[in-house]
């Protein structure tokens, strides 16, 4: 509903403005900056196919820029390409390449300051340091843009979509690869990210801090250097996202640090070194998620409490859960564990004996990481069996009293 409302609003604004606005065509060889300077508020600039070698194009009034067949705006590796500090700026169909590569001014493809009701849609950004950079703005629509960069190292590139102190925005259907962080949000509230494809970025696919009341729905985060890291935030909704192929010594599907009162529902965690790593999280719900073929499905540090894990599937993970403490203040219930070996005599589809998801070997590996080379050896199998019969080292109350006999059918729209 929110989306529809906003769309109507923008349409309405556009229509009223266009009554008096004119359309200006910018031909190949002309200057976009001069066209911008000459244009009146609310005008539409149609940029024709061609190559425009310009940077620091500054827009300080409401304007609409539309590219025809993706005109190339080449920043020639100097500073920003667009600098925008105005409400109601809409940019569509441009191909923006080669920004400066400096950390000094955070060069970006398009950089917004203090703007409202702006749209960035259907653009292609290549070899930009930062892709789209917004600060202190609101009511933004960032949609269907394709951002890619090819830096070899983390410090050689900035973030793909970067929001700082923004609110009430949509980030939808974008593709980001090769940047430092795919999507970076800091002090961002009431923002929805859906259907984005965030792949092969050097650090995090999604990275947010102090960004409350946001939701992330049906995004895919794949093969990012360290997965997804979210911190110091409350009331987050993560729904039906896919976190996969995040492998490496310190790589996570999601790293949750100090996340509270949040919901993680219907996500798929597949082929990650660690599916979810949690530290200092509380009062959050993890429901209907599917954890398959991860090294560790869950690493639950002792600083987490009052979290609930229910109706999740744990399938073909090396370790289902590991923890560093002996006290467990979280609830596990109604999950499906493929390693569960119990029985269901009363045929209520719930196993009659509880399941302990922490194996002795995972405790050993938690203490001595090198011991992982003994994984799948006879010795380890034997130790784990013994521990199952006579639990001595593994935390006593890390237990699912109602393990399910059959896996849940968990799918997302973006598979």
């Amino acid at each position, binding site marked *: 509903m929110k989306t529809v409302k906003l769309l109507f609003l923008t349409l309405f604004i556009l229509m009223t403005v266009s009554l008096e606005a004119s359309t200006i065509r910018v031909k190949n060889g002309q200057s976009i900056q001069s066209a911008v300077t000459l244009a009146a508020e609310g005008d539409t600039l149609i940029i024709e196919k061609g190559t425009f070698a310009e940077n620091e194009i500054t827009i300080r009034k409401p304007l609409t820029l539309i590219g025809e067949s993706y005109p190339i705006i080449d920043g020639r590796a100097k500073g920003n390409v667009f600098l925008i500090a105005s409400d109601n700026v809409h940019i569509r169909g441009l191909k923006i390449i080669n920004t400066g590569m400096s950390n000094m001014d955070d060069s970006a493809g398009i950089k917004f300051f203090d703007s409202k009701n702006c749209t960035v849609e259907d653009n292609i950004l290549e070899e930009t340091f930062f892709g789209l950079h917004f600060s202190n703005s609101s009511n933004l629509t960032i949609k269907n843009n394709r951002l890619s960069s090819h830096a070899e190292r983390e410090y050689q590139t900035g973030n793909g979509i970067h929001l700082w102190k923004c609110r009430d925005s949509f980030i939808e259907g974008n593709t980001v690869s090769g940047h430092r962080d795919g999507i970076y949000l800091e002090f961002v509230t009431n923002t929805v990210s859906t259907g984005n494809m965030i792949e092969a970025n050097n650090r995090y696919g999604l990275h947010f801090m102090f960004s409350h009341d946001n939701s992330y729905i049906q995004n895919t985060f794949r093969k990012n250097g360290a997965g997804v890291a979210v911190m110091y935030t409350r009331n987050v909704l993560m729904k039906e996202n896919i976190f996969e192929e995040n*492998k*490496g*010594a310190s790589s996570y599907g999601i790293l949750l640090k100090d996340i509270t009162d949040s919901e993680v529902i219907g996500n798929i965690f597949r*082929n*990650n*070194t660690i599916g979810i790593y949690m530290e200092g999280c509380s009062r959050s719900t993890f429901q209907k998620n599917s954890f398959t*073929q*991860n*090294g*560790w499905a869950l690493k639950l540090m002792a600083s987490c409490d009052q979290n609930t894990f229910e109706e999740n599937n744990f399938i*073909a993970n*090396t370790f289902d859960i590991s923890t560093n403490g002996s006290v467990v203040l979280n609830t596990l219930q109604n999950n499906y564990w493929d390693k569960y070996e119990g029985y269901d005599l009363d045929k209520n589809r719930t196993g009659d004996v509880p399941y302990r998801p922490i194996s002795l070997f995972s405790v*050993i*590996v938690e*203490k*001595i*990481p*090198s*011991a*992982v*080379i*003994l*994984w*799948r*050896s*006879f*010795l*380890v*199998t*034997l130790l784990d069996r013994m521990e199952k019969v006579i639990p001595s080292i593994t935390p006593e109350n890390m237990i699912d009293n109602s393990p399910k006999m059959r896996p849940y059918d968990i799918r997302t729209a973006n598979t």
Partner: protein
Amino acid sequence: MFKLLKYALYDIVKSRFALLYTLFMVLVAISIYQVSEDMSKVSLSLLNIMLMIVPLISAIFATTHFFNNLEFTELMLAQPVKRRDVFLSQILAVMFVLSLAIVIGFGVPMILWGADSSVLILLGIGIGLSVVFAGLAFLASVLTRDKAKAIGISLSFWIYFSLVYDGFVLYLIYSLADYPLEKPTLALVFLNPVDLGRIIMLMQLDISALMGYTGAFFQDFFGSAKGILLSSAVMFVWMILPVSAAMRVFKRKDF
């Protein structure tokens, strides 16, 4: 040599053991394929069989076969043939049958339900371990005159390599936890064919990258051309070493 091998093979292939073992392998493989849905789980279950059951059966069968065939071996020694050839024909026949059982036993279900390269490497490891443990069993057999004692020694080899050694490794890692242990553990892995087979396979299964730093280190090593070459070379040495030691003893042995 080939004549001897031909007859030894003929005898062993037609033996009840070869049939039962192959059947057992087929049943195990079929049930694993039936129970698990995805290939990597199949591979892991098959790996357990390869690492545990295959060496055990190889060791016991090779020892029993050696002693059951002792009189025939003696008969051969009275014929105008080389001792080396008598020995090699016996052990090669055993190795061949053990490998064949694995290839057929696991190969048929693989043809039926499909396989990937990791399963092929698994077959290779199964064959490698069969050869290693058949060699160790023959070594145990030529070192003693008593069948029960030889089976005991073969079993000790098996227990040592599949259990005791790993316990020792775990203890070592535990007591030296404060030091970087990746390289020493790599060396330790090479000193045990079962561990070596296990690690090579795990690296193939692409799960290794999920195993944190140690896993990544091992993946780096075993993924490189140098690592593949070195690990197969060491596996090869493991396959050759017990056999040649056993042959050395056999050549000097009194019957």
